[in-house]
């Protein structure tokens, strides 16, 4: 019984969201508000259940002093965000700046780790992967051409982002080649995605005509 109600409810919600394609309407607006409210709460449950609570629990019960201290630091910094609650505008308006500390903390941690992992995980491996022979003894013409296009393509598309010079002459030619490679990349990525997106739509329509209306089985 609950499943039948569920399927009808799900079908209604599916159609309501799809109605957005033909313009805004009260049904979409209503469902959109429900979606935002429900998913905000859903997100809280998921995040607390799967990440925050396990981290806190581990931090409180661990015997590792370093882990324990870092957990308490995070909690302290976390509490500072509360100085930006709207009620603080009335209670203590000249203390709201304290909430800049959590911003600064997270930014510092994020940029610090980002710098090193970016070099370590991307720059070095990708450079090494581009050390390709431009001529090979036993390679076909296509393989040689592919290697050449790959190496030149990487160089040109990287050079495309050279900001501090007016592009003239041969340099303009390289920038142009960079643009060509970038556009092919984007075109290919676009075309590659179509199939996955259509699969999703097939899934939804199949739900409507099969699970809900039982037209197909």
């Amino acid at each position, binding site marked *: 019984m609950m499943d039948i109600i569920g399927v009808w409810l799900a079908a209604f919600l599916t159609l309501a969201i799809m109605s957005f394609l033909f313009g805004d309407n009260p049904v979409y607006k209503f469902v959109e508000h429900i979606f935002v409210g429900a998913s905000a709460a859903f997100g809280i449950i998921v995040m607390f259940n799967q990440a925050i609570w396990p981290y806190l629990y581990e931090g409180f019960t661990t015997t590792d002093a370093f882990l324990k201290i870092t957990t308490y630091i995070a909690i302290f910094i976390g509490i500072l965000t509360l100085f930006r609650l709207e009620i603080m505008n009335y209670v203590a308006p000249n203390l709201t700046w304290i909430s800049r500390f959590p911003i600064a903390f997270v930014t510092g941690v994020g940029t610090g780790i980002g710098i090193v992992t970016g070099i370590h995980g991307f720059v070095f491996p990708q450079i090494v992967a581009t050390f390709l022979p431009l001529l090979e003894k036993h390679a076909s013409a296509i393989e040689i051409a592919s290697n050449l296009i790959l190496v030149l393509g990487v160089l040109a598309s990287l050079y495309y982002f050279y900001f501090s010079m007016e592009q003239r002459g041969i340099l303009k030619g390289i920038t142009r080649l960079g643009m060509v490679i970038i556009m092919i990349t984007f075109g290919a990525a676009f075309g590659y995605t179509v199939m996955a997106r259509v699969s999703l739509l*097939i899934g939804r329509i199949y739900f409507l005509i099969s699970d809900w209306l039982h037209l197909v089985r």
Partner: protein
Amino acid sequence: MNRIWTIIEKFGSIDRRIIYALVFLATAIPLFFNVRIPMPVSPEVKSAYEAMDKLKPGDVILISTDYGPSSAPETQPMLEALLTHAFRKDLKVLLMTHWRFEGLIMGVEGLDKIARKFNKKYGEDYIVLGYRPGVTAVMIGMAQDFRNIFATDNEGKSIESYPMYKEIAGPDGILNYKDVALIIGLEAGAIGNAWIMIVNARYGVPIIIGTTAVSAPDYFPFYQSKQLLGMLGGLKGAADYEQLLNITGFASRGMVSQLAVHALIIILIFLGNLSDIARRFRS
């Protein structure tokens, strides 16, 4: 002649709502018909099929549904096709997941549907083991005895209490990888790597992987190195399998929808460019 060009020019500004309606119809209509585009079956799907086909009635397969609803349009048809094949051959099916609740919802849904079609009974022909946390720990723990990890099934009953258990556990009464003829991992992420690198490498259980089109390239090297008996990639993989089973399931019809929408988009691009050319020549 001029009038024709005026009409062609109008193709450049088709209302988006018409496009939406056309996309909807192109997707929906093929789903109603049992049409199939005959296409060459990929070799990796063929070897997956052959691996399943070699099993004898009563052999046990373990299916792990490690995906959620967002990849279900691609992986669910694989589950249904593989289960159809399994029940046709009277294999015994165990189902588990490493994906908390999503994997379970999808797995149970597919299993119930196909089992009903073949009149198979819970506890006699299939058992849903369920979900336990800790991917590699679960896999290693199961090597000794499935009861170490799944003392109870998804419904909270002891797995020993089912008649199927005694059949499949063999004379020693312990159910572990030695009693499993084939593992099928349906993967939306990287858990398949653990199935291959731990369970296949250490315990030698043969494995088939079914995965989304996006993850397929990650698993392909394992197929080439023979660590996988076969694999199914994306909707095309599922459609291939259905073709081998000679059924027209969701995936086969889905491929027709795919073709229709792709063709529609290319027609639209064609018309748009035609109208652009017409405009440029006239001005």
